[in-house]
C-alpha cells in the first residue's frame, strides 16, 4: 500500500540562519529524503576579478581580505606569493617567518569559527560557539595590535609584511600559546565525546575518497575522507619546509571526521606557531619593492593551504602596472561542487549539518 | 454541530469537544477514573488518529457537500430521536441512592485483575497484534 506523494521543491536560503551567508540551495524533497539538490550562488558577487584589472598589483591586496573575510591573512598570503613569483621578488627570512606565524594564527581563528558554527548547526544554541570565540577574540586582538584591523587585515604585502611586531606582541602571543592546549582539551572533552553530536554527525554527509579526488576537493574535506594531502607539505611555500608538523586525517569522510580534522589542525597550527616563535630571526621584514610594480609579462598559478582548502591565484601580467587577468581558485566554490552527491539521500536536518561541515565562506564563493 | 458543520476538520475538532463533554458526564456520575481516562485515550490518542486519517483523505472529499439524501436522513433521524425520547420519558427509572464517593481506580484495578483477568489479557494481546500490524504496514522494504 503506497500513498501517492509528489516531490516538493524547497528553498533553503538565501535568508536562513544556517546557510553561513547569502547562499541558496534548492532541494527536491520526497517526504523527508532529498532527491536532488541544486545550489544557486552569486548573491554576494562583487565582481572583484574585473575590478582588479583596473587597479595596480598592490592596490589589489585589500580585495583578497574581503574574499574570505574570515581568513584574511591566508588570502593576502596567497596573492602576494603569486605576485612575488611573477615578479621574481625574494622575501627576507624574518618576513617569511612572520608570514607563517600569522597564517597559522589565522587558521586557528578560522577553524574555531567553523567548528563553533558547525556545532551550532547541530543545534547547540551557540554555547560552544561562544566558548570558541574566546580564543578567536584573543587572536583578533593580536592582529589588531600588529596591523590595526581585526578582520580585513591587509597585513601581508608584496615583498614581506606591512609592519614589524610591537614589543607587547610576543608576551601576549606566549600567553595565548600557553593557554590554548588546556582550552583545546576542554573542548575535546565537551564536544568530541558528546553522544548527541556523534549521533547528529556520524555517517552524515559522507564523501568517499574517489568523490573527493574527482571533484578536486581540498582542505579538511579531502583530509576528512582519509587522503593525506596538504600543500604545506606537498608544495612548500615560505618556510614550511623547516617546520615539523603532522597532517590530521579522518577515517570515513563524514561530518564528524571533518570536525575532528579541524580540531586537530588547530593543535598542529599551535606546534607551527611555537616553532616559528622560537626560530624568528631579526632583520628586515620586507623587501624593497618599487612603488609602481611592473612584473614581466607572463602567467603564474600559485597556491597555498588556506583554512578552507587550496586557495590559488592565477595571474597574467602584460608588463603593465595592472594585471591583465586576475583569477581566484576559491576553495569554497570547488568544495561546493560535490554538494549534490553529498546531499542526495539524506534528510533536511542532515543537509543543514552537512552544509555546515563544508565550511563555506560566501565571500569566497561569489567573489 | 458535528453533523452540520461543512469542514471536516472542524467536525473532528468539535468531536474532540464532545469527547471532553462525555468525560464530564462520567465525572458527574462519580466515575473519576473513567472520566480522566476518557480524556487521556479519546481526546488524546484516538482524536489524533482521526485527525491523521482525515489529513490523508484528498482535499476534495473533505468539504461536506450536500446530497439528495439529506432530507430523508433528517426525517428518519428525527423520528428515531422522538422514539428514544418517548421511551426514556415513559420508563420507570430507579434512582440510585446517593452513597458516599469511593475512589473507583482501585476497584477497577481489582476487577481487571481478578474476575476479568482473561478479557484483560486478551485485550493486551489484541493491542500487541495491532502494533505489530502497524509496524509491518509502514516498514520500508
Amino acid at each position, binding site marked *: 500500500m503506497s500513498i501517492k506523494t509528489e516531490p516538493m521543491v524547497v528553498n533553503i536560503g538565501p535568508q536562513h540562519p544556517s546557510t553561513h551567508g547569502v547562499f541558496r540551495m534548492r532541494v527536491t524533497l520526497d517526504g523527508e529524503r532529498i532527491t536532488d539538490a541544486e545550489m544557486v550562488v552569486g548573491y554576494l558577487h562583487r565582481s572583484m576579478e574585473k575590478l582588479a584589472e583596473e587597479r595596480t598589483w598592490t592596490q589589489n591586496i585589500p580585495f583578497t581580505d574581503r574574499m574570505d573575510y574570515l581568513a584574511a591573512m591566508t588570502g593576502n598570503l596567497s596573492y602576494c606569493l603569486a605576485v612575488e613569483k611573477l615578479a621574481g621578488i625574494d622575501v627576507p627570512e624574518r618576513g617569511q617567518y612572520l608570514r607563517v606565524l600569522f597564517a597559522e594564527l589565522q587558521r586557528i581563528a578560522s577553524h574555531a569559527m567553523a567548528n563553533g558554527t558547525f556545532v551550532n548547526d*547541530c*543545534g547547540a544554541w551557540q554555547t560552544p560557539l561562544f566558548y570558541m570565540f574566546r580564543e578567536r577574540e584573543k587572536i583578533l586582538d593580536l592582529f589588531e595590535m600588529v596591523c590595526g584591523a581585526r578582520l580585513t587585515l591587509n597585513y601581508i604585502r608584496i615583498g614581506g609584511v606591512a609592519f614589524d611586531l610591537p614589543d607587547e606582541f610576543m608576551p601576549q602571543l606566549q600567553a595565548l600559546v600557553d593557554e590554548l592546549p588546556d582550552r583545546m582539551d576542554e573542548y575535546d572533552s565537551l564536544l568530541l565525546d558528546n553522544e548527541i553530536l556523534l*549521533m547528529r554527525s556520524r555517517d552524515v554527509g559522507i564523501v568517499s575518497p574517489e568523490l573527493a579526488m574527482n571533484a578536486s576537493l581540498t582542505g579538511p574535506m579531502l583530509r576528512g575522507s582519509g587522503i593525506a594531502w596538504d600543500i604545506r607539505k606537498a608544495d612548500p611555500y615560505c618556510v614550511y619546509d623547516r617546520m615539523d608538523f603532522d597532517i590530521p586525517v579522518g577515517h570515513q569522510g563524514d561530518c564528524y571526521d571533518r570536525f575532528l580534522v579541524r580540531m586537530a589542525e588547530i593543535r598542529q597550527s599551535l606546534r607551527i606557531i611555537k616553532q616559528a616563535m622560537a626560530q624568528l630571526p631579526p632583520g628586515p621584514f620586507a623587501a624593497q619593492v618599487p612603488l609602481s610594480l611592473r612584473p614581466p609579462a607572463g602567467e603564474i598559478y600559485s597556491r597555498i593551504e588556506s583554512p578552507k582548502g587550496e586557495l590559488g591565484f592565477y595571474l597574467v601580467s602584460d608588463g603593465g602596472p595592472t594585471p591583465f587577468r586576475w583569477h581566484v581558485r576559491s576553495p569554497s566554490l570547488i568544495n561546493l561542487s560535490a554538494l549534490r552527491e553529498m546531499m542526495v539521500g539524506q534528510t533536511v536536518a542532515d543537509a543543514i549539518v552537512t552544509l555546515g561541515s563544508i565550511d563555506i565562506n560566501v565571500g569566497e564563493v561569489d567573489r | 454541530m458535528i453533523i452540520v458543520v461543512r469542514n471536516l476538520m472542524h467536525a473532528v475538532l468539535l468531536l474532540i469537544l464532545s469527547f471532553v463533554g462525555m468525560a464530564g458526564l462520567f465525572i458527574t456520575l462519580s466515575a473519576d477514573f473513567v472520566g480522566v481516562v476518557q480524556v487521556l485515550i479519546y481526546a488524546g490518542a484516538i482524536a489524533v488518529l482521526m485527525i491523521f486519517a482525515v489529513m490523508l483523505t484528498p482535499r476534495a472529499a473533505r468539504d461536506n457537500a450536500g446530497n439528495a439524501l439529506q432530507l430523508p436522513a433528517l426525517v428518519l433521524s428525527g423520528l428515531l430521536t422522538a422514539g428514544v425520547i418517548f421511551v426514556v420519558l415513559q420508563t420507570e427509572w430507579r434512582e440510585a441512592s446517593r452513597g458516599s464517593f469511593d475512589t473507583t481506580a482501585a476497584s477497577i484495578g481489582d476487577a481487571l485483575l481478578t474476575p476479568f483477568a482473561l478479557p484483560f489479557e486478551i485485550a493486551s494481546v489484541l493491542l500487541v497484534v495491532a502494533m505489530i500490524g502497524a509496524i509491518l504496514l509502514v516498514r520500508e522494504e
Partner: protein
Amino acid sequence: MLARWYDFRDLGNGVARMAQALRDAGAPDGVVYALTALAGCLGILIFVGLTAIVNIWVERRLIGRMQVRRGPNRLGPWGLLQPVADAIKLIQKEVLTPRAADGTVFALAPILIFVPAMLAFAVLPWGEKMVLADLNVGVLYLLALGSTSAIMVFMAGYASNNKYALLGAMRVIAMLISYEIPSVLALLGVVVFAGTMQLSGIVQFQDFYWSWLIFFQPLAFLIFLLASTAELNRSPADIAEAESEIVAGYHIEYSGMKFGLFYAVELVNSMSVSAVIAALFLGGWWTFGLEEFVPGWMIFIGKLYAVYFLLIWFRGTLPRFRIDQLMALAWKGLLPLGLANVLLSALEVLIWQEYDVSAGIVLPIFAVVNFVLAGVLLVAFMRVMTRSFERLPKRARLVPDISVPLPGEPATA
C-alpha cells in the same frame, strides 16, 4: 483544630479560617465551596502570571551565563525589565492572519493551548492544606492534560494553511504521543510504589517514610525528566522551534501577541512539569523537617526552580536530536527502561506488602537496589544505542607526510 489563620507556613490556614467563618455565618455549602475555590484560583493565577514574566528573565540570564556572556543587562538593574520590554514589543506588533487560513481555529489555538497548562496547576500540592483540587486520580489527570495539548498543537499548525507549519505540527504530534508512553510508565512506577494516585497522598507518603521518592525511583525520575523535555519541546528535543531546520515549526505564521502566547505557554508548561517533578520525586513541600521553619510553599517553589534550572542546563549544553533519533530514543530506549522500572517497583511493593516486612529494613535495601539497577540499565542501554558510533575512533589520525603522489611523479603502488 485549626491553626492560626496568620500561620503563613501554610496559606491554606487562612482560607480554612475564612471558610469556617462563612459557614458559621450560615452561608450555604455551595457558596463556601465557590469562595474557597476562588481564593485558590486567585493564588494560582498570581503565581502563573508572575512566573511567566520572571522566567523569561531567569532563562535568558542563565543561558547567557552558560555561554560565557552576561545575558540581558540593559533594561533595569540586572536586566529585570527585559520581560516587560518583550511583552510590550509583542503587544505592539501587527497581528497577521494569513488570508487562506482557517480564521476561527487560527485565533482559538493559542488561547486553547493555554488551558491544559493552567489546569495542571490545580492538582499540585503547594502545602499541607494547599491543594486546589485534591483529585483521587491526580497523576492520571496530569497525563491527560499533556495528551490534549497535542491536539492544540495540531490546530495551530493546520490553521496556518502553510505546508511547512503542517509538517512541523505533524512531527511534533508524533513526538508528543510517542513520549507520553515513557512518562506514563515512569509515573506508574511512582504510583505503584506510593500506593496512591493522589498527589498530596504521594507527598504524604514521602513525609511518612521520611525520604524523597527520588531515592527509591531514580530510573523513573530520569525517564520522566527526559520525556518531559520532549513533551515541552525544549532542547535537546526542540525540533518544533529549531532555527536551523527548514521546517520551522507550527507557530511560524503567528505574530504579535498570539506568538507571545505560544512562548508564554512553553514557559508555563515548563513550570508545571517542574512542579510535578518537585512534588512527586523531590518531596513537594516536605523537606526532612525544614517546613517547620520555612513555609512549605516557598520550599516547593524553590524545588520547582531547581528542576527548572536543570531544564535550562539541558538547553544550554546539549545539541539537538534529529526527529528519528528522538523516536528511537523513546521507543527503543525509554520504553524498555520504563517497563523494567514498573516490574521492579511492583516486585518490591509485593515483597513489602505481602510479607509485611517493616519499612525501616526494607526501604533502604530497595533504594540501594534501585540505584544500582538504574545505573546498570542506563549504562547498558547507552552502550547498545551508541555502539554503531563507536566503531571508528573519535580522534583524527595524524600522518607525518603526504600519501598522494605529486603530479608528474610516477604513481607508485
